[in-house]
């Protein structure tokens, strides 16, 4: 179960505002995290606490294929992104780097306590529980392993 405080954003949050182009020179995860969401809120990286949840509207993560976008959010401490819909490259990338994503339409205020049951695809805020899109089992397994790299290594080591 994932529990965290909500940071609320609107529709069409693109990968250029999640991690602006000038910061793509580095593979250093800490410096990616320091600029997470900078295009929309330059203070976000300082304010976000480990475990917090991003709640957004439609088409979250539209734009480029840069995997640095979900990496920056994960490294900044974001535990899950809940959105009405996702752009598909971001959706795959998030799962691949072990950042949980849930597609669901819900009402949420900034700062609300959000509880996400990934296996069920549900999100609970106060006394309201919303049913979102449940991930297929093979994607849940990738997330449970912490991303595609760890998942493939487990496969290779014959654990699976």
């Amino acid at each position: 179960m994932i529990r965290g405080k909500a940071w609320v954003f609107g529709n069409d949050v693109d990968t250029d505002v999640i991690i602006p182009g000038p910061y793509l020179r580095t593979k250093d995860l800490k410096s990616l995290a320091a600029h997470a969401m900078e295009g929309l809120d330059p203070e976000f990286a300082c304010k976000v606490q480990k475990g917090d949840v991003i709640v957004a509207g439609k088409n979250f993560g539209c734009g480029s294929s840069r995997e640095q976008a979900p990496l920056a959010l994960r490294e900044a401490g974001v535990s899950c992104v809940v959105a009405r819909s996702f752009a598909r490259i971001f959706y795959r990338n998030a799962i691949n780097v072990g950042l949980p994503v849930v597609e669901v339409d819900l009402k949420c205020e900034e700062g609300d306590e959000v509880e996400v049951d990934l296996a069920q695809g549900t999100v609970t805020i106060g006394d309201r529980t919303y049913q979102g899109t449940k991930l297929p089992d093979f994607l849940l397994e990738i997330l449970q392993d912490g991303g595609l790299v760890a998942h493939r290594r487990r496969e290779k080591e014959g654990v699976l």
Partner: protein
Amino acid sequence: MAGQTLSEKIFSRASKKEVRAGEFVMADIDKAMVHDITGPLAVKGFHEIAGEDAKVWDPSKIVILFDHQVPADSLNAAKNHLLLRNFGKEQNIFNYDVFEGVCHQVMPEKGHALPGKLIVGSDSHTCTYGALGAFSTGIGSTDMASVFATGKLWFMVPQTLRLMADGRLPSRVTSKDLVLRMIGDIGADGATYMTCEFAGSVVSRMKMPERMTMTNMAIEMGGKTGLMEPDEIALAYLRERVDDLDEDAVLHGDEDARLDERIWDVDDLEPQVAVPHNVDNVRPVGDLVGTKIDQVFLGSCTNGRFEDFELACEVMKDEPLAQGVRMIVIPASRTEYMKALRAGLVEQFMESGAIVESPCCGPCMGGSFGLLGPGEVGLSTSNRNFRGRQGSPDSFVYLCSPATAAAGAVTGEITDPRDF
């Protein structure tokens, strides 16, 4: 049972079973491309998955090139180039290095994009190669790492949305105006995870560069790829570039395939402009006439080809740039640069006061040079106008055709290119 769409046929071939939209498949990848921004993470992921001494699944199916930060514009960029250069050497992968230009021009131009094939690139505009009848799509670095290791990737077979355009485009109204109008009507997520199949009499008459402008922009309406039925024009383009082109391997969609369709009549289409900060915020140029411009960018994988430059030069004639306006011209590849050079277009741009750069992505993704400062306005032939995309988060990018960009360069404000 209904027939299959072109993308269903490509996924059936690549997964060795007959599949339809909505099914999950594990598919064999025919070609994989990485560049200098997303490649280093893919290499890191590959070693983490497969081991430090591991070999890629098939070096002949991978292409490396550098285009986003070339020539190396910082020490970090130089280190990224070095990492990929060494990886290419160790793994025996062909590397175009800094020499040839922007990936989405170089891949078709050098014969890597073939009809009926499944192609992935670690760049969202990989959807461009669908203009040649390939299913090509952008993926992230970890997916690419997995492709390097196994040559396979999972997909959900996408539904097809056919975007039909009939009629004749008026003079100085281009395929860019048409695709911007389509994006405006469909919305930034209106085709999420769909194959955007462009068709109709207008598309059939277009040459390859105009077609690639359209498939390039499919991602801007959420499309998994842009696609066109490979016809004689596409095959002629391929025959010039591929010695052993297997024309029997070319796939076509069935007439009774299940798909959705939207139709546009283009006879009265005006030049279109995407207004900050969303690509689907599209308005006719007439609504924006008089908007002051600081910088014009003519280039990118969307509109950096010889034909785009020819049209821009025709609009600009011998006029100098407007007072206070900068114009950056960047050919999409060395080949396109040479064509422009031989035709005297580079000279004409330089005479007007424009800066002509060597082939690269330039200001398009804001990670290199030619950036906009706070409050500045850019008019650009590229594909995205997101906040901060070409520099300061407080700058403004308007997207348009090469004709509209050229008209703006000489007047200093957004101008209808048909008035020239």
